[in-house]
Every structure is written in C-alpha cells, then in structure tokens.
C-alpha cells in the first residue's frame, strides 16, 4: 500500500515537471493489455493484430499519403460543419434564451428535431442530395447545431437579472448588453454546447463517411473492412480517439481555462 502511494507521489511529481506524461502514462496499461492479449494467441492474428502491426500500418499509410489526405478531408469537413453550426446556433440560442415568444414557439420544435438523430436523416438526404458533400455537411451542421442552440439558450437564461439591470443602469442599450453581458455570461454553457456538438459531430461524420464517403477516416475504416484489413480498422479507431483528445486538450480546454474558469463562473 505504502509502495503504491510512493509510486503515485513519484508520478505526481514527475508529471508536474513533464505535463506531456499525463497524456501518455494512462494509456500504457491499455496498450500493454492489448499487446498481451494479441501475443497470447487467443485469437487468430489476422482478426486481432497487436500494437506493433498497427504502428507499422500507420507508417505505410502515412508513407503512401493516404492517411494524411483522408485525415485532412475529415478534419476540414468537421471544421466547416462546426463553424456553420456555431454561426447559426449561437444567434438562435440567444434569441430563444432572451425572447419569451421565440422560446414558446421554437423550443418544442427544437426538442423535436433534436430527437431525430443525425444519421436518421441519412436515408432521406441520400434521396435528396445523393452521395454528395451536401449530404455530409448537412448531417454535421445538423448535429452540431442542436447542442449549441440548446446550451446557448440555457446559458443566456442563467445570466443573473442583476447583471442586466446593472448594464441598463450604466446606460447600455439592449444590443450592447447582449454583446457585453449576455454572451460572456453564457460562454461556459456555449462551450459545453460546442464540446457536445463537436463530439456528436465527429461521430456523425464518421457514420456519414462510412455510408456516403469516398474519402476520410470513416471511409478508410469501411474500405479496410471490405479488404478484410483489421489492422487498418484498428488504426482508424485509434486515430479517432487521438484526434478527439487533441481537440480537447489543445482547443477546448485552453478556451475554458481562459474564460469561465478565470472569471470564477465555473469551478475548476
């Protein structure tokens, strides 16, 4: 027990000096277990390859230029879809959050369409737009939009009445109050919406690529299934996980640290 505690405090000290370790160390047991199961020969090698084979396949696909191209396609699709979803979602959320009538009219409709999950739209979209970029973009925008709208509305409503009053008594117009009080006050919720939206959007993108795609990570995995290449499927799965981790650690978390956490709106 004391040994474990000592090991833990050693880890705490070392990882404080090299923060990158905090992203790597937790995965060591996972990869080790995977390697042990693969090496044990419990499953045929072609069905259950080990970590080394996946690394090798990673090297090959990068060398051939397939992986970077597909990755770029997926990321660009997600970025464009997310940007559009956010650009539509935040104003709509502010409207629904601030205006009683808009809330009464739009909220039920929003809940209804939120329930029709992203890929549930694919059958009809395929008929309307075929196997096209439009179909894929629609699915991502749709998926990102709802968490952003609903959370923005929630955040807007969570801004205390006193802050509205303070701004008004200092002479701020309605528009000015929205810009300087409502939006920053809603930002922690908007970030939650963005986080959820990106998460769902990422999943929807892979699903759409599997069905619609001619490129992208989802297509890579589905194409590998056709060729019976378990290694490449595993590789695709790992890339998905890694990419999400990077988006969180390099984009979302820093924004949250610089805003809501700094302002004391959310506890660390």
């Amino acid at each position: 027990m004391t040994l474990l505690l000592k090991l833990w405090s050693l880890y705490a000290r070392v990882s404080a000096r090299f923060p990158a370790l905090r992203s790597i160390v937790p995965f060591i047991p996972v990869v080790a277990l995977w390697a042990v199961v693969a090496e044990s020969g419990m499953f045929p090698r072609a069905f259950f390859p080990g970590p080394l084979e996946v690394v090798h396949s990673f090297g090959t696909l990068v060398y051939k230029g397939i992986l970077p191209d597909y990755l770029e396609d997926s990321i660009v699709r997600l970025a464009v879809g997310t940007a559009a979803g956010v650009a539509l979602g935040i104003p709509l959320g502010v409207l629904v959050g601030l205006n009683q009538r808009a809330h009464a009219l739009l909220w039920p409709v929003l809940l209804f369409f939120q329930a029709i999950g992203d890929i549930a739209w694919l059958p009809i979209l395929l008929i309307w737009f075929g196997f096209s970029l439009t179909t894929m973009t629609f699915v991502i925008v749709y998926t990102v939009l709802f968490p952003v709208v609903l959370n923005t509305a929630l955040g807007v409503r969570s801004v205390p009445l006193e802050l509205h009053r303070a701004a008004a008594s200092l002479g701020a117009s309605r528009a000015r109050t929205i810009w300087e009080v409502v939006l920053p006050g809603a930002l922690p919720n908007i970030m939650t919406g963005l986080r959820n939206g990106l998460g769902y959007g990422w999943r929807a993108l892979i699903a759409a690529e599997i069905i619609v795609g001619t490129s992208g990570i989802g297509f890579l995995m589905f194409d590998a299934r056709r060729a019976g290449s378990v290694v490449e499927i595993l590789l695709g799965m790992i890339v998905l996980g890694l990419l999400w981790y990077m988006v969180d650690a390099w984009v979302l978390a820093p924004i949250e640290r610089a805003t809501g956490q700094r302002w004391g709106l959310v506890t660390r």
Partner: protein
Amino acid sequence: MKRLLLRNLSKTYFDPYAGAHVTAVHDVSLEVQQGEFVSIVGPSGCGKTTILNMIAGFIPASGGEILLDGRAVDGPGPERGVVFQSFALFPWKTVLDNVAFGPRIRGLPKAECEKIAREYLALAGLAHAAGRYPNELSGGMQQRVGVVRALANNPDVLLMDEPFASVDAQTRMTLQEELTRIWQERRPTIIFITHDVGEAVFLANRVVVLSKGRILKEIAVPLPRPRAWDRLTEDAAFKALCGQVLQLVRSA
C-alpha cells in the same frame, strides 16, 4: 437644482400564490434635494427595495410619478446609478473595465475612460486591484468596485440597495466610513436602502422610516461630519436618534 421627486408613488402586483393583489408601496411622496444623503429604513417586506427599483426604472410604478430634474422616469438610465446588494459586477471584466464600463457606453475615448476609472479606483483605495477579476477580490473590495463603478458614470442620483448587507461587520463599518468620506468629497445625491437602523442614521442627513409600504416618518440627522464609528458609538445624540428610529421601526 436636480431634484428627485416621488409623487403619490404606489405599486401593486398580483401574487399568484396568494391569488390576490398585493400593495407593496402605498402613496409615497418624497423630495430629495441635490447633494442630499437620504436613508430609507424599514423591516423586510416594507417596500423599500420596491421603491428603489421603481426609481431605478427596473419596474414600472402602478400609480403616481417619479420626477428627476422635472423629467418623468421611464426605464433605467445612466443618470440614476445603482449599487446592488449582490454587487452585480461583470465577472468577465477586470476591475478597471468594470469601472470604465459606464464612461465607455457614453462613448468617451478609450484613454479618457481609463483615466476616469483609475481616478475613481484610487478614490476607493483600489488602484492596486485594477487588473484583477472580481472573483479574485474579497466581498468588501467587490462592493467598493460596485460603488465606484456607479460613481464613475457621474449619475445625478446614486441608488444603493442594502449594499453592505452581505459583508462582515468590520468591513461594513469601514465601507460606511468610506462612503461618508466619498459623499463629502463628491457630494452625489444618495438614496440608501437598509434595514440597519445604526447604518441609516450614521450615513444620512435624513432618515425616512418606511412601514407596510407607507412613509411613517422623516427624521433629520444633524450630526456633524466627518463621521466615524469610534466617536459616534458613544455619542449621546447619535444614540438618541438611533433609539428614536428603532422605536418607529419596531412599532411598525
């Protein structure tokens, strides 16, 4: 003279839980001269915050009128600054930006806004805290920011709604002394809402005792200034005034 005039002011609202109309403020008339410091004191539920919210323009009056400098009050405006019990600072703005908010809204150039904000922060002894965020300050410091944020906008009337009710007792005394000092230096018109009799008498030139939505009595406070707690606590005139007000409040 920028005079604040409340004429037969009343407020009734529908209470959905009681299922009936409730009169919170009943036929209140009050005249406040420019540069006066008036306290409105009364037990909770006596309508004092309702009156302040009507003067601020946050809620409409049901009857009567409010005139500032001859013009009827209609909605919130920068000529009536408000200091809130909950401070109501903008958490995403630094202390400096909070205080500069009013001048910036007025459209003054950026350098001018910063100059004004720094001047007022210095007035409240907060020059060192300019770059910090409100959540990094103690309650007492936050309310100092709240007061100078309202003052920096140079309002005709400063409306203060139990501003020191949520800070500890020692800090409260310091804040009260600072407020009297700032009032003497700048002479803003102040309407100060409180349920604390000692606070009402200590600060004001005139104490208005409110009960069940009506003005019970107005009492002049001729105590000399500057006022300080270590002198006034034992002062016979102060004690007599407090006793008189307390009796009115308790009889209410």
